[in-house]
């Protein structure tokens, strides 16, 4: 899962001489991955850097994460005070064991190895910008 992947990346970055810090929304997975430094934000998955249209909150969360780089050189997971809502009822439905009748159906999206675009237009743009030899954008992809 993502928090584990990030743990593996963090360990290799630190070994290469690059300091790391992270934001976590999954405290137990981050601890299992032995993340060097992280702040724990008790928000649902998909909101690692806070809430929609709230740059101030994102700044405060990131500041807290970056402060750990200056402050500590030992495994640290700092709990942030922010709450998602007035109560924690959002947690009730997260990864709950489904009802018996649905248990025979695989509810996960089918895992295809073709690119999954947010919009069909994105697919067209991607095809367009790769219709030639000089793709200047996807520098990160190995084909």
């Amino acid at each position, binding site marked *: *899962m*993502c928090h584990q*992947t*990030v*743990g*593996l*990346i963090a*360990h*290799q*970055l630190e*070994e*290469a*001489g*690059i*300091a*790391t*810090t*992270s*934001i*976590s929304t999954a*405290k*137990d997975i981050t601890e*299992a*991955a*032995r993340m060097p430094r*992280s702040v*724990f934000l008790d928000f649902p998955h*998909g909101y*690692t*850097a806070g809430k929609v*249209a709230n*740059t101030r909150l994102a700044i405060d969360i*990131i500041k807290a994460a*970056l402060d750990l780089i*200056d402050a500590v050189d030992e*495994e640290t997971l700092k709990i942030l005070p922010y709450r998602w809502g007035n*109560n924690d009822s959002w*947690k009730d439905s*997260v*990864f709950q*064991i489904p009802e018996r009748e649905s*248990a*025979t159906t695989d*509810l996960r*999206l089918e*895992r*295809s*190895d073709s690119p*999954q*675009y*947010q919009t069909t*237009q994105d*697919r067209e*743009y*991607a095809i367009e*910008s790769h219709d030639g030899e000089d793709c200047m*954008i*996807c520098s990160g*992809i*190995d084909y």
Partner: protein
Amino acid sequence: MEDNRQPPIDYIDRITATYEALGYDRYQWHYAQTAPSFAKRTKLVSESKIGMIATGGIYRTGQISFHYRDDASYRAIPSETNASDLRATHFAYDLSGAREDINVVFPIKAMKALKEEGHIGAISENFFTCMGGIYSQRSVQEELAPNLVERCLQEEVDAVLLVPV
């Protein structure tokens, strides 16, 4: 009054139980066997060049998107990119927030603001994104992580903010 506060979710327990109930293969959780090493720090964050790696399946329009089957590739996102040109695709989290405001999984606006405010010395020319929901820890260890380390070294960053989803 904080008495309606629930403890953090035990994701490992809940996901393991859900997978079992659905008859999926048991997920192999990664428990790091070794303590992390810590890079030697010579500069403060306010004097440092900071990079960012996010795992939420973010791409820029014009880029090839990610796929959903153990995709160990990554994308370089120039830090000057407008948020409106960024997209999110993933199989493992609710994308509604990210598609309304990409900053909830890729806080590019906050990073720029922190630089403007002087809290960060500089931000790297490129940030990096990947899928993260990769079931093969080996492909992360041997492919994705080393590639990202190499790119971060090229960017000459002093430190990296990691944003998993």
